[in-house]
């Protein structure tokens, strides 16, 4: 039973279509991350689910109930915002209990819930303070608490960590993950930080231009991106792309670069079928390229070293291959001189091949 269902949702701001015929099913207890570049409509989708924006077309179901026309408070959702959005004139306690008071809950029940939430989030010593007397991390914790006390079915997070510094961000990220493990609520989490997405999500929905490009588990998105866009968006440093052609020779399929170097595609896990041939792009992640000093015919392609970027645990080696810059992740203590020629072996089972015309993964 899906916990949240979005059916054929469209949303326009005047003439601008921000969401286009969007469908999305989120399972009970799932942690779904909406990932995409700025302006792709992530917040808009979240606001639609929350009921803060009227949809132009389509339906929204929460727990099998059609809530398309319901008020935010009647949808069983709690929301956490990027700018915390704490009520500045109320104490932390006032912030936490505001929603409960609006729901006319008896005061002993309110106290019970506020106490429980502040215990979970470890903000009990802060209850009497004003938001302006809290640090960024504490504020965001209170904001989460505001959703927590209301005992909602679905948590909505809109980039909750992006106002925090790097250290606090990773701390709170772990805390949110722990919270999810403990509460087992459905959570929808908007971010444009792929580390957050990859670490938190049960499934990631990669969005672009108001359309979901791929909806899958993080590993799946990382290993088998459904199109060029997703492949380039996920992963840091980014995936390498090599333009070329698929050459079919009986059972054998190989990839030929612009300059005619050929690589056998033995072992490639195709989503459709390779035997259609045609122009294509080979995508390989930096950690899936191996460097050799000797040529292996039909397997390696030569390339010259441009720059060596040490990154601590390992190094990023930039090589020039037929007018194309490629990055390769190598051992940090492998000292490479500029201009050295290496022979690159691509890990074909872990690579992706995209059709040139549709940009879809083959």
């Amino acid at each position, binding site marked *: 039973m899906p916990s949240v269902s979005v059916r054929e949702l469209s949303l326009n701001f005047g003439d601008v279509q921000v969401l286009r015929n969007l469908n999305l099913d989120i399972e009970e207890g799932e942690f779904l991350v909406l990932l995409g570049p700025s302006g792709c409509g992530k917040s808009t989708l979240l606001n639609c689910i929350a009921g803060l924006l009227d949809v132009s077309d389509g339906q929204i179901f929460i727990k099998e109930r059609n809530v398309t026309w319901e008020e935010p*408070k009647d949808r069983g959702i709690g929301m956490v915002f990027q700018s915390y959005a704490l009520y500045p004139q109320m104490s932390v306690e006032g912030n936490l209990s505001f929603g409960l008071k609006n729901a006319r809950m008896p005061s002993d029940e309110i106290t019970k819930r506020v106490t429980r939430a502040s215990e979970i989030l470890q903000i009990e010593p802060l209850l009497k303070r004003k938001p302006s007397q809290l640090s*960024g991390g504490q504020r965001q914790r209170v904001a989460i608490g505001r959703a927590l006390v209301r005992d909602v079915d679905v948590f909505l997070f809109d980039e909750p960590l992006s106002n925090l510094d790097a250290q606090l961000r990773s701390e709170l990220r772990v805390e949110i993950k722990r919270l999810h493990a403990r509460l087992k609520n459905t959570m929808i989490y908007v971010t444009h930080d792929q580390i957050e997405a990859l670490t938190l999500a049960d499934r990631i929905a990669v969005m672009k231009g108001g359309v979901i490009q791929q909806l899958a588990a993080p590993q799946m998105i990382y290993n088998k991106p459904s199109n060029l866009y997703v492949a380039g968006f996920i992963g840091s440093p980014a995936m390498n792309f090599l333009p070329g052609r698929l050459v079919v020779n009986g059972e054998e399929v190989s990839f030929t670069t612009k300059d005619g170097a050929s690589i056998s595609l033995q072992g490639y896990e195709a989503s459709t079928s390779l035997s259609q041939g045609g122009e294509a792009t080979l995508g390989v992640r930096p950690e899936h390229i191996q460097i050799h000093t000797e040529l292996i015919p039909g397997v390696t392609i030569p390339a010259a070293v441009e720059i060596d970027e040490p990154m601590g645990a390992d190094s990023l080696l930039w090589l020039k291959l037929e007018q194309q810059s490629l990055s390769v992740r190598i051992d940090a203590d492998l000292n490479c001189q500029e201009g050295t020629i290496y022979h690159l072996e691509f890990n074909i089972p872990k690579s992706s091949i995209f059709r040139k015309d549709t940009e879809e993964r083959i």
Partner: protein
Amino acid sequence: MVNPSLLPAAPKVVGPRGPKPTKAISPRNIMLYGTLIVVALYYLLPLYVMVVTSLKGMPEIRVGNIFAPPLEITFQPWIKAWAEACTGLNCDGLSRGFWNSVQITVPSVIVSIAIASVNGYALANWRFKGSQIFFTILIFGSFIPYQVMLYPIVILLREIGLYGSLTGLVIVHSIFGMPILTLLFRNYFTSLPEELFKAARVDGAGFWGIYFRIMLPMSLPILVVAVILQVTGIWNDFLFGTVYTKPDIWPMTVQLNNIVNSTQGVKEYNVNMAATILTGLVPLVIYFVSGKLFVRGIAAGAVKG
């Protein structure tokens, strides 16, 4: 112990060090302070003349030197201006006009700010159907010259039986303050983070709940601005006060005009000066009191989180 004279000499500090010296008297400063002093004198001189004149007796004024300080200080002109000067049939001085003005200003300020703040809040946060058109009309309304509406409003007030009454004038002031105040509040509420409003909606607060519990407590700075604007504007109003009232309920400004411009008898400059200062006292006090509040309001209203 080492003999200090045996230690190597500390290297001499060469070149500029520490705060840069500033010249107190430079051409730039002379220009700057000179201009400021001249401008300040220009504004303060009339006030000085008024205060000095109001403290002199008539014989001393007839001598003619308006800048000379009073030889003999007398408060008689102030007493006369406040409690004895005659306008029309009433000879109870400006005190009558003062209380009239209070009765006009207080309700007008409260009513206009109450309505305008709700208007501004609705326009800023609840994008209801036609809100854009409503807003445009309102802005347009603030550009229509008062004179155009003067007579239609006379008829309107007469028809509802409020012509020549304090209530009528209060209504007029409230309506005329509406466009600019609504604009003021709308812009202020638009500048507050929208996520705060969204959070309150998710928390189940309604239109009035959000207004009273979230928005209003954050509005002190803009409330102070609105109060300054309205109190001074309405207190200083002359046009509406003349047109829509009758002698018994004249506001202070109209009464002042009648005292100063009365044609019978000798011109009592000292009384006139005292009356004028008395009339200007309320806006002056408002500026002083709320100026402090204003700064504090802005500091306390630091909205971010």
